[in-house]
């Protein structure tokens, strides 16, 4: 499990409406440190991961979303959206960082990092 911990509450950044993300689909958010993939699942939940497969860095935002997982477009590893961990036969082989995300009034908010002093 990836544990999300913050010493201070992170600042949240509005990146768009939930409905901007197709159901069972994904959109990218470009950041200075590379893309973040934001997913919307069939049950309407929103998840965010760094857009980089633990295998060979495939862009997870381009995969097929099913259940709470995404199948990487390059070699079909299935990554758990909640934990960033590969599942099934590839479980335990690395991990994609999870980006804290929350939905408020239909808007998607991503956590901005707390500035390191």
């Amino acid at each position, binding site marked *: 499990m990836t544990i999300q911990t913050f010493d201070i509450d992170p600042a949240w950044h509005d990146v768009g409406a939930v409905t901007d993300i197709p159901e069972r689909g994904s959109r990218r958010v470009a950041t200075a440190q590379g893309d973040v993939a934001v997913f919307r699942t069939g049950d309407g939940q929103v998840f965010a991961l760094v857009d980089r497969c633990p295998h060979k860095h495939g862009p997870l935002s381009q995969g097929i979303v*099913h259940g709470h997982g995404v199948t990487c477009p390059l070699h079909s590893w299935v990554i758990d959206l909640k934990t960033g961990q590969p599942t099934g036969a590839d479980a335990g082989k690395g991990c994609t960082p*999870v980006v804290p995300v929350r939905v408020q009034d239909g808007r998607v908010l991503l*956590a901005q990092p707390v500035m390191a002093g």
Partner: protein
Amino acid sequence: MTKEKLVVIGNGMAGCRAVEEILKRDPERYEIAIFGAEPRVNYNRIMLSPVLAGEKTFDDIVINDEAWYRDNGIALHAGRWVTGVDLEARKVLAEGGLEVAYDKLILATGSDPFRLPLPGADLSGVVTFRDLDDVDAMIAASAKPGARAVVIGGGLLGLEAAYGLARRGMGATVVHLMDVLMERQLDESAGYLLREALLERGVETVLGAHSEAIVGEDGKVTGLKLKDGRVLPCEILVMAVGIRPNATLAKASGLQVNRGIIVDDAMRTSDPAVFSVGECVEHRGNCYGLVAPIWDMCRALAEELTDGEGAYQGSVLSTRLKVSGVDVFSAGKFAGGEGCEDIVFRDAARGVYKRVVIEDGRVAGAVLFGDAADGGWYFDLMKAGTDVAEIRDTIIFGQAITEGLSGLDPSAAVAAMPDTQEICGCNGVCKGAITSAITAQGLTTLDDVRAVTKASASCGSCTPLVEQVIKATLGDGFKVQTGPKPMCKCTSHPHGAVREAILAQDLKSMPAVMQAMEWSTPDGCASCRPALNYYLLCAWPGEYVDDSQSRFINERVHANIQKDGTYSVVPRMWGGMTTPDELRAIADVADKYAIPAVKVTGGQRIDLLGVQKDDLPAVWADLNAAGMVSGHAYAKGLRTVKTCVGSEWCRFGTQDSTGLGIKLEKFMWGSWAPAKVKLAVSGCPRNCAESTCKDIGVICVDSGYEIHVGGAAGLHIQGTQLLTKVATEEEAIQLISAVMQMYREGGWYLERIYKWMARIGLETIHAATVEDLDNRAALFARFVKSQETAQVDPWAERASKGVEAGEFKPMATLPMGMAAE
């Protein structure tokens, strides 16, 4: 002794329930006053739906009549707005200058319906659905003969409003932004069944619809305009798009408010003398819109206010829809997810769909449609966190069966079932019928039992149970099933049966197929979804709407993904021919977008490799401007038509092979197929276009055109077989299109032509397309029809017509990095 003064603001579900709970614990403690903005006693708001539908009257839904207030010494200020609270002086200020002092105050102000800020939202006839006045307005509108209603919002409230209005004789249409009704409670399968059930009850639904404006005349609403230009006429428009906690009063009084009024586990606000319950509350970040959590809150509050210790922990929710004859239940993580196991039961004949989601051996959620009798049982198991490993095999059949069999292992449980126990719901076969058929007729396999008794003949879901029955009856004599392979883990049906059913039963959407064929998963998997999407597209050209989320990325974005996440772009080069202008345009595009690699492909055209996703629409626009369209290098569909130079130049050429190749490609491009389809035309038997290793190849000879089928040169090298020889180009095009259409209609997803041919035989193809000329003409006609809607350049649609505009650019760009882990 003077009593403490308790004032309640809000005479609704929460306010009055809180008072009831307090009176139950300590009837003597408080002198109580209740303020309510509505000029009436406390009634059951959730029953407004049956009132609207004419199934109940207002009197039926009153919870506490005037006598209750009187008998309990409660002062009711009905029809009076509270305008302010003075926290310092502990006083409530109401309309008409009334001031009432309190020792303890409860805010139960509920919520406000959300109004979309559409143009025309203030026209008369635009209403929300919250209180009796709204219901009265709707009933009045429905009295006009022929009046129509539009409801924006396909959630619980919107559907109940539309159903009620339809019951009152109005034509009612629900307009919903999402693709699934009640998407926060239902998965796609249940949403589909609900949509059908509503249609039977006179409620139409428009899904994926964006409202643009409310139109009107003389200050009155006359219709709703959608973004796609459609106008839905109506005399009344109901907005049921959600609610917002009503925290206005709390905020103005200086209490801490976020989305709702913030309370702790004792329901206490930021002021120690002020409490809050109901929809206006925000507890641990959650706001609720159903009554069950309100009952929990009111119990906690009553404990706290009568010297106990209030401890509200948040609530787990379940929902039922109140539309007569439509049984819907939903709770928890109804849509499952990674790490969850889905148990699905479908009964196509009875219109039943049940899905129970198991996580870590416990029920994590459930959605039931058509038979929701066990909803409460699943909800109890879920809330209690009961370990259900022991009853996993029978849990989907409900409480009665499961508890009847508890403590027994599956085979013993099956053995212990009474003969009258129904095993196969769809065909109504009970256990006794199966066991007697087995013994009387000496059946040994599942197939035998299926053929004789019909048990599990239409359905995957009872197959394990039927197998258990056979095992229990035969012991070791049971033979494990062989037979056609099912499409995937989600179904017991093979591809062929699914394709047949789509046509025979007029199944026109993915949920329709999954319900009719009793899929054992809620929304399929990565294998069956793309297959079904293709089958539906092929069966209902021009009618079925492609589901891009059921396509692999390449077909979704019309380019091939590369190892570094960039894309490759391959424009069509008809029959391998190009021009200096096209080459210049390709060179310009490569320069302009700094495309790192340009390569000639094995398919006689040019590949631009390493294009950034964001640049794709602009690259396409430039290529389109030079007259080039998508080469579908990514498609399960027509790829390339390779040609040689032929009689135009070659000293051996017998016919214009390049010209025929171009004609074929121009005629057939854009068509989707079970797998990729590659063609080639060679000008003579020297075969420089490698026609004999293509899906369909033409070899020109002096007397005409040899048509070859079933080649491939990939993983398995496969030479073609000769189908026939035809005399003219026209006939060649017609025959090839007919073969293509036959394959499109009969091939299984991912089955290339050579595999399809091995399965059905070259003779069958020959009989259907060469011997039977009427059939050839019919196949050709169907291909032509399909091409009418298939031949749209997907690049142009995305480059200049704004299709899937959001797909190619990031949804946001942030200057900094993001917190992770």
